[in-house]
């Protein structure tokens, strides 16, 4: 198991967990969010490839109502 921080909260996930897995875990469609890892924005078409690492800080961002 590895420990990461997602949207400010600690989470333990299995090794070899991809970003896509993570989104799937939260039931978030990859099409309606952006993902930032350690301050770096990830390309959507890489989600299946990129694996989370110990101590990663992940931000999952959505669009919402705003002026």
């Amino acid at each position, binding site marked *: 198991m590895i420990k990461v921080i997602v949207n400010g909260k600690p989470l333990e996930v299995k090794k070899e967990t991809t970003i896509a897995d993570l989104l799937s875990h939260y039931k*978030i469609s990859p099409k309606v969010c952006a993902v*930032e890892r350690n*301050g770096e924005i990830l390309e959507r078409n890489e989600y299946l490839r990129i694996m989370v690492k110990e101590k990663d800080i992940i931000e*999952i961002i959505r*669009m919402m109502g705003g002026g």
Partner: protein
Amino acid sequence: MKRDILTIAKRKFDSRLLLGTGKFSSPNVMKGAIAASGTEIVTVALRRIDLNDPKDHILGYINSKKYLILPNTSGAKNAEEAVRLAKIARSFGLPAWIKLEVTPDPRYLFPDPIETLKAAEILVKEGFTVLPYINADPILAKRLQDAGCATVMPLGSAIGSAKGIKTKENIAIIIEQSIVPVVIDAGLGTPSHAAEALEMGADAVLINTAIAAAENPVEMADAFRLAVMAGRKAYLAGMISEADMARASSPLHL
């Protein structure tokens, strides 16, 4: 009648009303208001998903083929945060347009001129189409235009204050000097405020609270649509000027 087109960064629009999507009581009311307003550009904000409740995403309610989605950098307190938000927005795969807002103080949400210019310079270099929200400051507006911004968006009065155009003198100068479109961005509380902005020669207005927080947002969106058309038409049709003496509308002598 010739079609009257608003061009921002080479993209053409028939509507001169940009609509914010905050504060609607429900997504369906928002959807109705978007349709009634006739808008072609809707702004959205970016926030962390609530992992315990990854609710409906707003994009499900707005057809991004029909409307230009304009993400804002609301919440950014400096240039760095604004640039980060802009890049996140871009990663959604929509056109790289960004409404640049840098507001260090949450009480009045006034924009920071220094950080806004800094962020604009960075974002223009990175290929963004940048629409900065600013105080009604003619010199700043000029500098942002020179920096390659696609519009300038001076505020009429504080966000959500509904006080109308309190910065008339400065707005008039910004309109006079600008080559890029001028969009009045905050403080417009009534359709007459919006009409007045267009009458002054502003190219467009951005409305959010005045529609979203109205008792009947869909009807209010329609009212703003009409007012924006009225103001623009009046600007083009050549209004009379103010006079200090009366001008009789009936002949003076019996």
